């Protein structure tokens, strides 16, 4: 089980060494009520497998999609998620806060 951050980063290393494309997403800033603290990690591989979390499950799907782009391009990205508005399909945080997530490729 990968319950803790150190295990998540270990998994990222193991995945990369096994030849998989890997990205690490990190919560770098939060405003208002945010589900996961600054420093929380999500690791993603090029097939969309992921471990860890950057929110309570609200935006992980979007982060995974963006991470696959980052793995392809090699260029890091800064993502920002705010409160979900009335458009039900738009990803966002129901808790009302805003988070910024930095996504980088493990090269």
């Amino acid at each position, binding site marked *: 089980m990968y319950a803790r951050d150190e295990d998540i*980063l270990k998994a990222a290393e193991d995945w*990369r*060494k096994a030849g998989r494309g890997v990205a*690490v997403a990190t919560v770098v800033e939060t405003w208002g009520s945010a589900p996961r603290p*600054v*420093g929380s990690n999500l690791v993603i591989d090029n097939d969309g497998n992921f471990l860890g979390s950057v929110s309570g499950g609200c935006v992980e799907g979007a982060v995974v999609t963006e991470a696959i782009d980052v793995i392809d391009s090699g260029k890091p990205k800064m993502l920002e998620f705010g409160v979900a508005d009335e458009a039900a399909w738009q990803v966002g945080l129901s808790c009302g806060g805003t988070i910024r997530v930095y996504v980088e490729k493990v090269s």
Partner: protein
Amino acid sequence: MQLDILHAINEDRAARRVVVVVTNVDNGAQRLVRAGDIANDPLRDTIEKRVRMAKSGMEETADGRVFLTVHVPSPRLVITGAVHISQALAPIAALLGYDVTIVDPRTAFASIERFPDVKVIAEWPDVALPPLNIDRYTAFVALTHDPKIDDPALKHALARDCFYIGALGSRKTHAKRVARLKEAGLTDLDIARIHAPIGIDIGAISPPEIAVSIMAEITLRLRVKQEKAEAA
């Protein structure tokens, strides 16, 4: 992130060493700052403060916005004495995120009935302590009042540079302890590192109140710069 940086982070974390990753989020540049390099780093003041608070976060610098990922070992608490204070201290410390171990060779004290959820080792300190690999992210507390148990454990905690070392006992008891430790070859500097009387003076009377005062002193030592902590 380069794979070699990720590998180094994982190695340092596994070995319970401090490591900080500095990532420029504007241009993607990244560097690793290991414990021994902090003093020479351009961001040393910020890094030192963040390491002390174990807090990752964003900083504005002349070179752009940087994110500091701070990895510090999780703190541990090692106690000699499966006594009444320990029964209160262990759960309080666990709440604060400490990994708690109690060492007491007296099996009647170190029983599972008295400590249902705590790691208790019913062995003498010279047997129990070395395998624990206690380090500077460990707080050590001597609570038995028995020199045969507390003294060797205190010497071990001093040698391992625990960030907090405290010993229970009145000023008179502590004076006797100091005499014994000096006899055993410890320096004044070593002995000055032992907090005795233990805990912050909050007028604690009951074992749980004493546990609160000890935990407050440990927190002060963990979070506040040494000079400030001494002034408090």
